[in-house]
């Protein structure tokens, strides 16, 4: 039960902070997304993000910060095994499940649902 609560409040807090960024700054959405991914990489590199994922589970791994963290970990691991080439392969290898999952599930959803007008 505590897993759910921790995931909820950590994930919610990240989203709330970003919502403030969206509303109170003139940053374009694309820049905010890049900012989140890069921040995730940095937090991963300093070893801050993994303990957070341990604590909050999906609450920390699902937001874009988590994607940045995954990229960092993938590249680090690939650098250790493949050397220089790992710099190019590691990020996508580690992110493959998430990226491919998004593609497959959105494709499946497009079979089931038709876009509707907003009410």
């Amino acid at each position: 039960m505590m897993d759910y609560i921790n995931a909820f409040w950590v994930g919610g807090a990240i989203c709330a902070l970003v919502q403030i960024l969206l509303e109170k700054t003139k940053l374009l959405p694309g820049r905010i997304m890049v900012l989140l991914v890069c921040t995730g990489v940095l937090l991963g590199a300093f070893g801050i993000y993994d303990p957070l994922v341990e604590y909050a589970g999906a609450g920390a791994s699902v937001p874009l910060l988590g994607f940045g963290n995954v990229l960092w970990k993938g590249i680090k691991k690939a650098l250790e095994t493949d050397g220089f080439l790992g710099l190019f392969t590691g990020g996508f290898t580690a992110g493959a499940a998430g990226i491919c999952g998004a593609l497959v599930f959105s494709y499946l959803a497009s079979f089931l649902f038709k876009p509707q007008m907003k009410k």
Partner: protein
Amino acid sequence: MGCERIGSQTVQMTRPVYMMSTASVAGKKESEGPLGSLFDQVGKDDRFGEKKWEQSESRMQQIAVQMTLEKAKKKAEDVDLVFAGDLLSQSIASIFGVLGFNIPLYGLFGACSTAGEALSIGAMSIASGFAHQVLAVTSSHFATAEKQFRFPLQYASQKPLSAGWTVTASAAFLLADEQTYKTGAHLLYPSHSQSEAAEEPIQITQVTTGKMVDFGIRDSFHMGAAMAPAAADTIFTHLRDTSRTVCDYDRIITGDLGKIGSRVLKELLGTNGYDISERHMDCGVSIYDAGKQDTHTGGSGCGCAASVLSAMILRKLASGEWKRVLYVPTGALLSKTSFNEGQNIPGIAHGVVLESGGNTR
């Protein structure tokens, strides 16, 4: 010549240009709004029988033109020119909307001010004798505009309260010279008016071409504020060019400034010594019930100003309730690329004077 330039930006028609026919088509949300019963046709699901939203928008234009022609008992080949535009890239909704009619076309882009632009050029074409009857048509669709400028509907993003709600609607107008008007059918509202004698003839007497005004706004969710300075500039210039005052108009009607933009407009004109608050109306505010319909600052889009003109403003002029209005559709000039590259959003507004009754000079 049929028209002459007065002041810096205004053209006076010296040969009459009549509003011969008009029709409006609107979507579901618009049909549930305060003007819902006034549109000629409303769609149940905003698709108008098409599978793609862009095709739905084209279909709306096609229906609007068809109904406009039918009311005036005209065929497409009777029309000399059509001026058409919309919000989509390369005006593609208008292209497929009027393609089938086979009328010589000038495609226009004036963002949400397109109705004013099309009526202005149409009126000048007729007054100067280059055409006997011309069509002006425009449209916007919530789903296509969201896809073009923000996110597709599937993305389900939330809008801030300053954002406008793109109106799903299209309207067409048939303008005619005196000869054509006097010898043809010209009942604008056949379902309400008993006979042509029951309606006052409506003329376009002046047009004031707007200048672009760049106020440094970059937020596409704040377009009312981007357009208000342009509207203020056009209204101010028009009154100066014609040596008229606000009291000479029953209404000064802006396109889609919304609640926030309307407030900015009144402040800007107020500092120039013009108080329009009692005679101002904004189509974007009028088309929805902001309290019940959750439409934020109000309606926007080419179809907003056009459909309100067709369904409501011309009706009031035809009934004689209003004698003279200054119609000022407003446009925010941006493309998705210009917005993403951080360019400003300049505004534009075109003024069209519509007068009813016999003695309109």
